[in-house]
């Protein structure tokens, strides 16, 4: 069980988050919707430990994730919007930073990395990869410690349909194994994938049930 309570954050006079509350159950995908600049990325960066909130709690299985940084680093995987990969190195080299050689081989054979199809381009340098390959590899790097929660900032933006489908399949697998996902997104396909959604507006989160009515969604944002 993941509890996020009263998260507040401001930059100077600008209040970005004014008390964000929501819970995430194991095996649940939560979508965070909102306009650009509404604070989605800020919220994810706080949960990923990139910056500290002004106030609030972030607990997982009863542990304070804002204080237990080692536990958080292992249990939370953060996938930023842009690629964090090292372009001069191959997929193998990038992954080797996060995996032991034996574990990497095993994962590439029949683990999550194989599920992501990374084994097919393991020797390709990142600067020769497509956007979809990079995204899959980033996810592969992020999940090295078998996390329970994945934070994804617009994970399939600008990817082709085949690639999106592959990543969604992986999300389903991750979810089935008891993992939770928090996705900041604008993509309808991703919203449909979510078990519950929230709209982040003016620093506050409000639950939103998406029923395929896009004009209604736009009106709420």
């Amino acid at each position, binding site marked *: 069980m993941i509890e996020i309570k009263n998260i507040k954050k401001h930059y100077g006079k600008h209040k970005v988050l004014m008390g964000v509350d929501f819970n995430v159950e194991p095996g649940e995908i939560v979508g965070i919707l909102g306009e650009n600049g509404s604070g989605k990325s800020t919220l994810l*960066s706080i949960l*990923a*430990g*990139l*910056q500290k909130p002004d106030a609030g709690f972030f607990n997982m299985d009863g542990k304070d994730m804002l204080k237990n*940084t*080692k536990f958080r*680093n*292992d249990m*939370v*995987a*953060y996938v*930023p*919007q*842009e*690629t*964090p*990969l*090292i*372009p*001069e*190195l191959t997929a193998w*080299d990038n992954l*080797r*930073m*996060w995996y032991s050689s034996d574990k990497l081989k095993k994962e590439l054979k029949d683990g999550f990395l194989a599920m992501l199809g990374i084994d097919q381009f393991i020797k390709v340098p990142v*600067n020769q990869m497509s956007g979809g390959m990079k995204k899959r590899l*980033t996810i592969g*790097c*992020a999940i090295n*410690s078998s996390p329970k929660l994945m934070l994804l900032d617009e994970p399939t933006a600008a990817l082709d349909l085949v690639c999106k489908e592959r990543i969604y399949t992986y999300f389903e697998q991750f979810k089935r194994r008891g993992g939770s996902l928090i996705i900041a997104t604008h993509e309808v396909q991703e919203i449909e994938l979510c078990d519950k959604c929230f709209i982040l507006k003016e620093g506050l989160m409000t639950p939103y049930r998406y029923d395929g009515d896009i004009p209604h969604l736009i009106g709420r944002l």
Partner: protein
Amino acid sequence: MVSFKDYLLIQYKRIFKLLPGIVAMILVVAVLLSGAGFAIIHSDTYSAEKQRYKLGVVGDTDDEMISLGVYMLGTLDESRYMIELVEYEDEEKAKAALRQADVSAYIVITEEFSDALNAMTNDARLKYYATSGQKGISNVMMDEIALIATNIIVNSETGICTLRDLMKEEGYDKDIRHEKVNDMFMTYISALISRTNITEVTELGLAGGLSTPAYYFAGLMLFFMLLLSFCGISYFLGVKDARHKFMKSKGINSACQVLGEYIPFLTINIICVIIIIALLTIAASSGFLTSEELEAMGFNHLHELAVKLLPVSVMFSALGFMIFELLIGVINKILVAFMLYIGMGYVSGYFYPKTFFPELVQKVGEMIPTGVGFSYFSAVLQNNPQGMYLLGMFFYTATFLLIAIWARKQKIR
């Protein structure tokens, strides 16, 4: 969880992938700077500087005594090895020559001066003209030359004139007067020639006692080390904030990130310095650089030099790292760093002696990182104590890295 060691290793892996390009750039920069250094040391200007300064002489040289003085100064006196006298018909021509740097200064011997000399009143002065500006080594030298010229022309010839006039007053015959005056000339010439034995010409240091080749070598070497950061510019390109954020989310904080990237960057810079030292060694062993030339540059053992340059490399690498961390965009990085390096190097005397600048600028030039590096390297070349400079470089290195860490934190936010 990933450790600092893992991060460091991946950065080493990354920078070594870029190494061929980096080495190619180093060689280009090294060839260009070697060419510049070679040109300076073997240039006509330098050779001329090393041999003689040209002094223009304008005016009434028809006077027997003055023409003799000028002749002796140009042919017999020890100063002839430093001074070449060039006679001009009028002052305008001398002035034009001074403007075109054909002469370093000129002396005007006026008619009043000749008359005063013959009348032994000594109430007229030689007029000495030199280029304006701050006192550089040339100006100092020219002051000395003017002094020599004045001494020889005024004092010695006044003595000869005195003898001639006294003998005339005492009623000596013209033949006897000529004989005695000629004897006096010969005694004077003998005295001038003997100056060769009592003087020892030593090349004055350009800065802090460094010889001209050592000074230029130090300046070029340090400027080259500044430019080394450009060779590794590819290491800083294509790095997105997302990577820093991702690393932070994995437990690698800003300080670890900066150090983990700085150490490989420093390693590459040190490798570059070693390559240059190796090239110098090859040049020395193949006879391209003679042992005399090496000694003139201030060192004999090149491998020692590589070790001694290490602290400078540490500081300059930190400076480059900080600049590239603070700035966004490749054009910005290169332009700002280049302008900064040129400015800092110039003020610290890498291209011209610091004495050209006002005192305040000189002080600033000595205190900024490039100046501290130069003072340290000068001390190394002269085997002087280097403790204070090492401390200064350590302070700057720590400051640059702390600023880089702060900048990284801002990017991760």
